[in-house]
């Protein structure tokens, strides 16, 4: 167990900035998710923490000690790779023992640790098999076992579930969560899957374009996304976002996008800068209501398409020349091509000015 700190870590490959000025505190025993689309630099960041790649500038500190000059082996970290990276010429037992043997841990201790990990992960019957004789899920368990036997300061996971089929992924996700509770270990987990991020992490660090967009707990990330990117990246289907500008009609400030105007709710007004350049208004599909609710904006929409998800419906609508998706229960009698009223609860609206959220304390620019 340990805490990790990143101080202004940057990385560039041939003039191209992959990571810019990443600063992050990972507290002891936390499960931190590095979330972002592919190519955002999250895996590179993990490799820098591991010591597999060197950063261009900035520092990595584990337990307050700078580790930049240390090779991966001396950082006391364990890593679970996307493709498992089991040594194919070694049996499962030898795979588990490998790192301990390299550290000259006594035979007896190695055997005990392997027994312990095998019990925890239920891989006892597999110990004498070779990796090629294991299924994907079993390989995944062995890969985790190889990290667990080390009892490292930090666990690093590089998209470990992305090669499993959907069903197995869900069950491994639950097991991983339990495992983290059991081990009380500090884990850093890279993924592009926002469901994994929401369910596993106690903190989500959203990375895009080599910068940290937001670092918060999952609920906060969902409820108060720091910028339009985070807003659209977290949640399925993504938040409805419209870019527009500020207009004043009479004394009322309004938000105009395309040929639609909305009155801006009063609680946004004090936070607005005098001359904002770009405004983005957003609302999550699941927050849109088909029935009148107190303190809501009413809009008239025409239904384009309905997707039936079983439990509920995704209603694709048109508001003037804007598009919108609403999520609603099955019992509203909505059909394609009909006109309907939609209600936006004002406290569920998200407003972004110059790509930053305005109704919450503005996060320091990354």
């Amino acid at each position, binding site marked *: 167990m340990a805490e990790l700190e990143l101080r202004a870590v940057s990385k560039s490959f041939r003039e191209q900035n992959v990571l810019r000025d990443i600063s992050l505190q990972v507290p002891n025993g936390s499960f931190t998710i590095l979330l972002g689309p592919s190519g955002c630099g999250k895996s590179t960041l993990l*490799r820098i923490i*591991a*010591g*597999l790649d060197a950063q261009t500038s900035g520092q990595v500190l584990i337990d307050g000690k700078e580790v930049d000059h240390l*090779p*991966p*082996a001396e950082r006391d*970290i*364990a*890593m679970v*790779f*996307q*493709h*498992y*990276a*089991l*040594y*194919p*010429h070694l049996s499962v037992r030898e795979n588990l023992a*490998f*790192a301990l043997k*390299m*550290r000259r841990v006594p035979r007896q201790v190695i055997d005990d640790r392997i027994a312990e990990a095998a019990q925890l992960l239920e891989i006892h019957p597999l110990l004498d098999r*070779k*990796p*090629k*004789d*294991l299924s*994907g899920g079993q*390989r995944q368990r062995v890969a985790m076992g*190889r990290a667990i036997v080390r009892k490292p300061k930090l666990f690093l996971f590089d998209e470990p579930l992305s*090669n499993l089929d959907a069903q197995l992924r869900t069950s491994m996700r639950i097991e991983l969560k339990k495992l983290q509770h059991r081990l009380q270990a500090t884990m850093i987990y890279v993924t592009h899957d926002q469901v994994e991020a929401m369910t596993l992490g106690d903190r989500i660090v959203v990375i895009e374009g080599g910068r940290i967009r937001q670092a918060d707990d999952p609920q906060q990330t969902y409820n108060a996304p720091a910028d339009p990117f985070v807003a659209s990246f977290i949640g399925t289907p993504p938040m409805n976002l419209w870019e527009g500008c500020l207009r004043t009609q009479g004394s009322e400030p309004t938000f105009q996008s395309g040929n639609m105007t909305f009155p801006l709710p009063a609680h946004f007004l004090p936070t607005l800068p005098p001359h904002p350049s770009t405004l983005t208004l957003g609302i999550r599909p699941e927050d849109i209501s088909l029935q009148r609710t107190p303190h809501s904006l009413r809009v008239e929409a025409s239904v384009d398409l309905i997707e039936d998800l079983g439990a509920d419906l995704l209603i694709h609508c048109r508001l003037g020349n804007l598009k919108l998706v609403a999520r609603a229960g099955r019992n509203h009698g909505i059909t394609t091509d009909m006109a309907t009223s939609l209600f936006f609860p004002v406290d569920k609206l998200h407003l972004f000015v110059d790509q930053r959220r305005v109704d919450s304390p503005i996060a320091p620019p990354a």
Partner: protein
Amino acid sequence: MTRRILLAGGILATVGLSLLPFLWFVLTSFKSQTEIEAAPPPWWPSGSLGFYRTALFDHHLFDYALNSVVVAGATTLLALLFAIPAAYALARLTIPGKQGILAVLLCVSMFPQMAIAGPIWRLLDSLGGLNHRWGVVLPYVALTLPLAIWILASFFKELPPELEDAARVDGCGTWGTLFRITLPLATPGIFTAAILILIYAWNEFFFALLILTQPEQQTLPVGIALFQGEFTMPWGELAAASVVATLPLIGVVLLCQRWIVSGLSAGAVKG
């Protein structure tokens, strides 16, 4: 069906055509002098071992074979010793002009031997390597290195780099990773390269003839070629000696065949 018959016939014809000269030599080696000189010679030999006796004992074939073993063995070991680190570096490290290096290697391996024979002879002369077995080992290593590096580099490239990352996290340095993870997984590549080097060094005639003029150091191809007398062409002994010289190679290839099985790295990563 007709397609399959045609295909099978084609394969048989090709294999037969390439085996025929060798088969004729094997048959000839078991004939007697009268059978060889008969016109037309009989297809099937009487099973005489006379030529083997003369080739092995009168022509000192064992001494040549010993020289060949030493030369080919040393060449193979030395070439691998240099080729493995070179190929690993070319496969894994970011080296400026890497493609250029590989292209130059390929060009070097295509140099006509005639063109470099003179310089090599002079070089060995000044190094004192003429008429020493190491004198042929040196050019052999130089000439087989490009091919070995190419084969090994392509093998190393195919190994998942994630395995090496895992080894580094688990506590291996560069050499530890190479010896504990990369080399065991590249066994098929190493054996393939080793066998090709061995075959080259075992069969090489031109440089051996040029550099080794004393019978004590000569290798099998040179030794056998010099069976020929001023007025005689001992076909029988030549055939017997050629068979003896070929057998060890066939043995080594058969023995190593199980190591040249690819797909050893299956199961390392998904796939």
